[in-house]
């Protein structure tokens, strides 16, 4: 029972961590809570359904299921990255030097727009993901783990390691860290800040798309409103781990996933959605810099 909940929590936590990475990267660079990020995840889940249904109709899924899933994932990531890129260009870039509230409100506007766009085009009811994966699995210390759960945990782990290596080792990653530290200095040493910010949005949105497709496969249904609660939970995970810190977002995601899954089974499942908010409030009040974050001094 406990082990089962741990595995469920870990699966959920991997998904939260993937979304949280997008929040934490954007916040690290722009100090903006990207409210539309949860909607990118929701778009990813919908696109997964649409593209997979299209491929199934074209006969590819019957021919080769892994290939079909792979193409779905790649196309979804491409589309969602484009959404992230475009949203930043239209809604955030003109507000780079505006007062702090302006981009936040603009982000809320984007979020409302995307939610209602999907509701209008895809309907307000739950959309069912074509069940292409069976519920096969294996026994692990007398606990049942489905292949999908194992795949989600493994995929999110691998993606996080790759992202960490990207940010720490590559030139673009170094530029991202540099911009996060000081935008003016970064531009003085010849870093194209606009490009770095665009890349950040593209990567973050791509990760959210992966999370979206995985969740759609895992739960088997999506709704236009899933982006809001998943977004808030992922943001909680990012704050919990220390906003701006990439390892922090991973840790925060896993901790939050475990807390939610254990809380739902041992305390009360009715208040499942409230745990994230309670954790968020407690963390912000007691240790606003998070578990792994550094304390930021207020600049005057």
């Amino acid at each position, binding site marked *: 029972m406990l082990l089962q909940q741990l595995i469920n929590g870990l699966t959920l936590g991997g998904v939260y961590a993937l979304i949280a990475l997008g929040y934490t990267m954007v916040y690290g660079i722009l*100090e*903006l*809570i990207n409210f539309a990020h949860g909607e990118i995840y929701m778009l990813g889940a*919908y*696109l997964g359904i*649409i*593209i997979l249904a299209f491929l199934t109709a074209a006969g590819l899924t019957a021919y080769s299921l892994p290939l079909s899933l792979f193409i779905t994932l790649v196309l979804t990531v491409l*589309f969602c990255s*484009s*959404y992230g890129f*475009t949203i930043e260009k*239209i*809604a955030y870039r*003109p*507000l780079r030097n*505006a*007062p*702090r*509230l*302006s*981009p*936040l*409100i*603009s982000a*809320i*506007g*984007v*979020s*409302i*727009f*995307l*939610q*209602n*766009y*999907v509701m*209008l*085009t*895809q309907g307000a009811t739950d959309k069912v993901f074509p069940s292409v994966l069976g519920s096969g699995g294996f026994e692990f210390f007398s606990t049942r783990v489905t292949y999908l759960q194992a795949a989600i945990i493994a995929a999110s782990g691998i993606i996080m390691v790759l992202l960490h290596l990207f940010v720490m080792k590559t030139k673009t990653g170094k530029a991202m860290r540099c911009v996060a530290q000081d935008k003016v200095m970064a531009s003085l040493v010849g870093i194209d800040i606009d490009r770095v910010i665009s890349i950040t949005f593209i990567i973050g949105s791509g990760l959210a798309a992966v999370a979206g497709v995985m969740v759609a496969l895992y739960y088997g249904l999506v709704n236009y409103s899933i982006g*809001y609660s998943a977004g*808030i939970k992922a*943001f909680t995970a990012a*704050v919990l781990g220390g906003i701006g810190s990439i390892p922090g977002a991973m840790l925060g995601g896993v901790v939050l996933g475990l807390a939610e899954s254990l809380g739902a089974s041992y305390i009360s499942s*009715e*208040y499942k*959605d*409230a745990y994230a*908010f*309670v954790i*968020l*409030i407690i963390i*912000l*009040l007691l240790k*606003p810099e998070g578990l792994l974050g550094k304390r930021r001094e*207020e600049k*005057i």
Partner: protein
Amino acid sequence: MNGMTMKRSFLFRSLIIPLWISFLFLPFKGLLPAAVLFVVLSVTIPLSKALAGYLKEIRLPDLRLTRFVPAGDRLGLLLLVPALLLPFAGDNYITDIATLAGIYIILALGLNVVVGYTGLLNLGFVAFYAIGAYGYALLNTRLGLGFWSAMPLSVLSATAAGFLLAVPAVRLRGDYLALVTLGFGEIVRLILNNWDSFTKGPNGINGIAAPQVLDIQIGKISLYYYLVLVFVLVTVFVMRRVQDSKTGRAWIAIREDEIASAAMGISTTWHKLSSCAFGAFWAGLAGTLFAAKMRFVSPESFTFMESVLVLCMVIIGGLGSIVGVIVGALVLVLLPEVLREVQMYRMLALGCGLVFLMIFRPQGLFGGKHAASDR
């Protein structure tokens, strides 16, 4: 600019941007609507760009309200006449909408204290509205208290909630504060939704009594409209007095520059607390009026979208401007009623509108210039 780059930027605007955007919309609606979107955008984007050039040349008349109508108190009195006559002119439906608009004006003016004057972003303001509404609903249905005896209690509990939430929250920086308030709003809604034995959960509470004034039951909507109107006038009066008081100026000073105002001897902590509590007070009042008007409350009325809607009322009109907030509330309540056929697209337009408003007019339609000067 030489001819070559002119040509390229024209090509960019009329082909590449529309192509890109219709490509992004493609998977959700299919090929044909995407093609239509492409044609529409490839005409409108270069056209709007060209028109923008001409529009800059034309000197637009000053569109501030005070230019066309008498300033100050006379303006208010002028607006009061149609407001007083409304129940005689229109049918019950119009009066009903106007009553709702009045309740939203009180609510938005309350949020304006927190967001507009003090500059603290509150994304869970609807929680205090909910506490006011459920306060009256529970006191009335469980203890049998009447409107006038329950109202002070429910308003007081909303104020207390505002104060208690603010005690730990005001230490936080802008966007963290926004998240804590958002979390608080959601927790309040989840409690209302799940605590079946006390709040009747998602079914809501019905059978709330209508208020009574001097033995007259205010059941009819036209009578209730006047009751709300009186409360709106009281709210506007108090807001105007508070805005020019020492406390109000301290709030605005904190919004403009917290460190400088602390250096001037203003207790920033105390003023932030008083601002949150004062804002919650009006939300509690609006909630009580809402419960008494609907005679039914359920958690559905107090979602995050509701908080955002009230925030939009404050922002559209202009942060910190009383007239602006009233216009914002009227616009957002009346517009969906006017545009009933296209109501589905209302939220879509609201989302777009917020983005464009922030880009082109961050101080709101009626906001002063100073509102945008903080970092």
